[in-house]
C-alpha cells in the first residue's frame, strides 16, 4: 500500500498573488481570534477543540 500524494502535497496554488482574497475579513478574523485566545486560559484551537500541546514556557 502506498500513500496518496494528494493527501501529502498540501494546498497547491498556481498564482498565489493573484488569488482572490478578502483581506479585510482575514485581518478581522485574525485579530478577533487573537483576542479570543487572550481571554481563554489556553490558546484557542479551531472550532472549540483543545490546544495541541500546551507546555508552559
Amino acid at each position: 500500500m502506498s500513500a496518496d500524494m494528494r493527501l501529502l502535497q498540501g494546498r497547491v496554488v498556481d498564482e498565489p498573488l493573484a488569488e482572490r482574497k478578502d483581506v479585510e475579513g482575514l485581518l478581522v478574523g485574525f485579530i478577533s481570534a487573537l483576542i479570543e485566545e487572550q481571554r481563554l486560559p489556553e490558546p484557542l484551537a479551531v472550532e472549540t477543540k483543545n490546544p495541541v500541546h500546551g507546555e508552559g514556557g
Partner: protein
Amino acid sequence: MNAPTQPSCRRRRARCLIIQLARLGDTLQSLMALKAVKQLYPELELHMVVRERFEAAAKKVHWLDGVFTLPTRQLIGPVLTGENTIRQSLGDAARWVSPLVEKPWDFVVNWSFSSASSYLAGLVPAFVKLGYSRRTDNTFACEDGWSQYMQAFVQDRVDQNIHVTDILTTQLLTALQIHLGEPENVGNNTVTSKAFFATDPPPREVFDSPFTKWIAIQLGASQKEKTWKAGSWARTASIIMNNHPECGIILLGGREERELETAFMNSLEADFAGNGRVRSFVGATDFDKWASIIGSCQWLFSADTAAVHLASVLGTRVLNVSVGPVKLAETGPYGNGHYVVSSAHEDVTPEAVYAAWSYGSGEWSHNLRVPFEKHAEGLGIGKDVLSNARVQRSKIRPSEEGGGVVYEPMIKRELRVGEWIGMAMGHIARTWYCGWTPAVGSEITRDLVSRTLVQSLRQAEKQLAVLSRLLVEGHLMASSISRKSMSLHSQKIMDVRDRMEIQELGAKLAELDQHIDAATASHVVLEPIGKMSKVLMHNLHGNSLVEISRASAAAYQQLNHGAGILRDWIKHTLSLARPVAVMDANVVSLASRRAGKESTT
C-alpha cells in the same frame, strides 16, 4: 505513490515560512523538526513567525534565515482596554503583516494549529500551504493529511503514539520531497546537538566545581495538575545527595514559582540546605541563562514543561516526571536515553524517580542488560514501591522499523485500552500518510494482553463490522452521485428528475453519516474513526458536484481502509489471547506420572 499534481516550485533554493504562534514548548518542537529538514535540504530558506514572548528561542537559532515577531500585546492591547475597536486596529495589523505578504513564499507551513494562525496563513501568499489556513471565502481549510490527523486525533485527544516532532518533520519533508525532489543524503545523523542554539558559555558562578555532576530540577509545570509536589522533588534530591556525594542540584523556575522554591527548601534534609550543593536560580534566569544552565547540566529533572524540549535539543538527558493529563507519546522528551516516570493510579514516588535516574546514570555499566526491577531491588526499593510505577526509556527507532521516537517500558505492564488504541492509530497514520506498513501488532506480546483489553476488543469487533458495512455503503453512494453528476450536461441547470435523484442520494448519504456517527460513538476503539470522519467531511473541497462527490467517495474509502487495519489489529490481539496447545514433548500424562511415583516408593 500516486502521481502528484503539477509541482509548483522545482528549485532547491525555495523560501519557506513557518507559522508558530503557540507556546515555547511548541516552538522548540518546531525548531527540532526544522533542524531535521535543514539537514536534508540545506539550501532551503527558513523563516519563522513566533510570538514576542518566545522569540528569544527562535532568535538564538543561527540556521534560521529570518524571524518575524508577532507583537500580540501591541496589536490587541488597545482593543482589550476599549481604546480601539477591532476595525480601528486593522491598520496596525496590516502594517505588521505587510512584510510577510510582499512576495509569495514557496511554502507556508502553519504549525500552530489554532484559529488565529489559520487567518494569518490565509493572508500570506504561497505556492504550497500546509497546516490550518483559510479558503478564498474565508472558511476554515485543513487540506493535507497530517494536519487532518493533528485536528482529528492530536487536538481531540485521541490516543495515538506518534510524537508531535515526528509528525511535523514527516509532514514537511514529504511535501518537500514531492515539490523539490529527493533530499541530500546525510546518513543517519542525529538532529539533537549541543550546537542547536548559539548558547552562552556556562555561568561561572554556577559551575565553579569541575568535580560536581549537576542535576537541574525545573520546579512547576504549565498547569497545576501537571506539577509534581515540591516536597517530592526535595525528597528525590535528598536521596540522590545522600547516595551520590558527587552530585549537586540546581533549581530552576519562573518568578511565579518562588513558592515552590520555598516549599522545596523547607522539605530538603537540613544537612543540604545552605551547604552549596543546592543552588537556586528560580526567577533569576532569562532564556539565554536558562538554556546555558540546562545545556551544562548532566541531567534535567522536570514535569511537563518547555524545559523538557529545551534539554532535548541541547542534548542534556531528561528525567521526566509525568503527572496529570499528559500525552507522553506526543510530547515527551525527544532523543535517545531519556527516562519518563509516571504512575498508573497514585502519585509518582521519589523512590521510583531515584531508581529510574540511578538506572539511567548507570547504563554505561549495565548496558540495559540488568532488568530495571532487579536494579531497584539492589537499591533497597522493593516491588511494592514500584507496583504502580511506569518507567519508560526513549529511543529513536531505526528508519526500517518506522523511525521516530518511542518510549520503551522498563517495567512490563499489561496494555491499557488507550495504549492499544494509540498503537493502532499510529499504524493507521503511517499507512495513510507514509505508505509504510509494519507487521500488524508487532509491538504486542501475549503477556501484555489483559482480560479487560480482550473483553473490550471483542465488543469493538462486533461494532466494527457494522461500521465497515456503513463505510462501504457511503463509498458506493458517493460514487453514484459522482457518476450521476458526470452524466449531466450542466452542473447547475438540470432536468427535474435528475435533480430529485441527486437530492435523494444526498439525503441518503446524510442519513448514512448519522449512522456512522452512532456506530463510532458506540465504542471507544471506534471513536477515532468517527473523529477523522468529521474532519474529512468538513474539509471536502471541490468546484463542482463531481469533484465534491469524488472527494467524498475517497474519504469513505480512506476511513474504511483505516477500519480494515483496526480489524486486523483486533484479530491479531485476540489471537494472542487464545489458549495455546502445549507441545507434546512437554506433556507428562497423569498415568506416566503415577507410574513414576509408584516406582520411586
